[in-house]
């Protein structure tokens, strides 16, 4: 795999940041976009734009077909059984809120339990907290160990007859832990408990197979998979989409509307109210094509190489500590430097053109568990090179110099 050839497909890297070559290490936050995605957005708006599904003129038919083409591509991308099981949302957060709201409305009552983990991003905690507030549900946390791995043995202890759903991340955005979700699902299935997987971080890094996993729900954030912002995907098994009540009400999600009753559209439209981000969904198809053109085997191999190179190199710098040491780790490295707050690290490395994230990364529960108030995070994408890591490390040396660390 020629990384430089891949990198050249991303126009942003021809720009300078603070007069320096951009070293983008914030892909867990949002990934940069390849030229194919950008060209499609531009072309669609300039030449093909129309709303989908409503009008019958040629532009609308074309737009609808292209929109549905992306749905079919997503189906293949995650190996869903049917494209009806692919719902487009505003983002992955909305996808999880969709499930929490509709599933909660139908299946959660006072005293019922929702099981999540200490690794979760706020987007896979807050929507469930609403059910605690509104319905008197109980949220239980599957604990992690100091390495950042979930303690799977505790799962059986935490599951009770009151457990109604398990919601768990596939890949931690802080420790990079690849969670053994298949094992979690196997345990849950024996107790007939549905499982939602937050796949925000995993989708760009791991080959997803929802049928092999046998999960009930899977949420994806398209902008992290080299796609446009404004699009998320919810995969849900057909039975759930047919059984659960609708989420947002409005145009496009109805069947018949009368003064005294309303019937809803079949899936997937039932969950796609109002005008959708048409151009962005159409352009997301290019992201999937881009991913497929590289192939997950190559992608995983490359990211593993970069991650190991970065870990080895960071460990040699005095006073740098890596957060967590999970059994299986993807390209996300959070770290601290003794004597320098992550915000100061971020400001100083930014002067060198290095974009990292600093803070709690929307994981306050996890940071408290690890006794950290904030961390710095370097997260990798397909375009990152060993040279990027070298520049990061020399920028960290600059932090140490500014702060006069020995």
């Amino acid at each position, binding site marked *: 795999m020629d990384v430089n050839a891949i990198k050249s497909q991303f126009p942003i890297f021809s720009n300078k940041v603070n007069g320096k070559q951009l070293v983008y290490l914030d892909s867990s936050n949002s990934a940069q976009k390849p030229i194919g995605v950008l060209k499609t957005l531009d072309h669609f708006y300039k030449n093909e734009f129309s709303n989908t599904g409503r009008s019958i003129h040629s532009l609308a038919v074309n737009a609808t077909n292209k929109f549905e083409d992306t749905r079919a591509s997503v189906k293949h991308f995650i190996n869903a059984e049917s494209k009806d099981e692919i719902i487009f949302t505003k983002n992955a957060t909305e996808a999880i809120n969709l499930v929490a709201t509709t599933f909660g409305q139908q299946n959660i009552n006072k005293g019922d339990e929702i099981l999540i983990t200490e690794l979760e991003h706020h987007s896979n905690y807050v929507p469930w907290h609403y059910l605690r507030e509104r319905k008197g549900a109980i949220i239980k946390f599957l604990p992690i160990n100091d390495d950042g791995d979930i303690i799977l043995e505790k799962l059986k202890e935490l599951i009770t007859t009151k457990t109604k759903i398990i919601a768990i991340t596939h890949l931690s955005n802080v420790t990079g832990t690849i969670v053994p979700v298949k094992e979690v699902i196997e345990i849950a299935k024996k107790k007939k408990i549905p499982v939602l997987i937050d796949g925000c971080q995993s989708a760009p890094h791991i080959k997803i197979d929802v049928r092999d996993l046998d999960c009930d729900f899977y949420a994806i954030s398209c902008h992290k998979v080299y796609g446009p912002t404004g699009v998320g995907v919810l995969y849900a098994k057909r039975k759930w989409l047919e059984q659960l009540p609708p989420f947002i009400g409005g145009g496009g999600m109805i069947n018949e509307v009368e003064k005294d009753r309303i019937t809803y559209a079949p899936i997937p439209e039932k969950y796609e109210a109002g005008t959708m981000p048409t151009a962005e969904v159409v352009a997301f198809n290019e992201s999937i094509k881009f991913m497929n053109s590289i192939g997950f085997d190559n992608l995983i191999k490359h990211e593993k190489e970069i991650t190991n190179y970065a870990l080895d190199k960071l460990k040699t710098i005095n006073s740098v500590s890596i957060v967590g040491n999970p059994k299986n780790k993807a390209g996300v490295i959070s770290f601290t430097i003794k004597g320098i*707050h992550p915000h*100061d690290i971020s*400001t100083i490395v930014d*002067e060198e053109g290095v974009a990292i994230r600093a*803070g*709690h990364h929307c994981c306050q529960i996890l940071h408290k568990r690890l006794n950290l108030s*904030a961390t710095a995070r370097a997260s990798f994408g397909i375009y990152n090179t060993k040279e990027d890591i070298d520049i990061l490390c020399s920028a960290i040396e600059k932090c140490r110099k*500014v*702060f006069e660390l020995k």
Partner: protein
Amino acid sequence: MDLKELYQDIILEHGKNPRNFGKCDKHTHQAKGHNPLCGDQVEIFLKLNNENKVEDLTFKGSGCAISMASTSIMTELVKGKSIEISKKIISSFINMIKNADEIKLNELNEDQKIKIMSLSGVKQYPMRVKCATLAWHTLTSAMDGEKSDVNTEVGDQ
């Protein structure tokens, strides 16, 4: 942008060795401040005497060099001042950080002005302004006896 202007020696020194750190005895007022975006937290302990003068002012918390230094310098400058003058210092500081105005306070001596102006580099880094101002807003909250915590994302901070 110049990093040296942001991370001046005074700031690095106060960041490493913050003055008046800890909980003071018999404080009469206290307030908490929080920046939910980064997790910075500060707790202010204020002891006012009968004449409404700041007899003691300390803080606890964690944060970046900018927030720790800013809080440390604040406690030094405000200690011993009346409430009225303290509030003048606070508003001049916030004005300086946000609007780049010089500090023109007769109540501060030259040495104190140098200290407070060492934080002026922050204004070139808009994302860091809240790091510098959190403690100052929290001190105002303590003086006014506000019940709710200061949150950098709520209201005009």
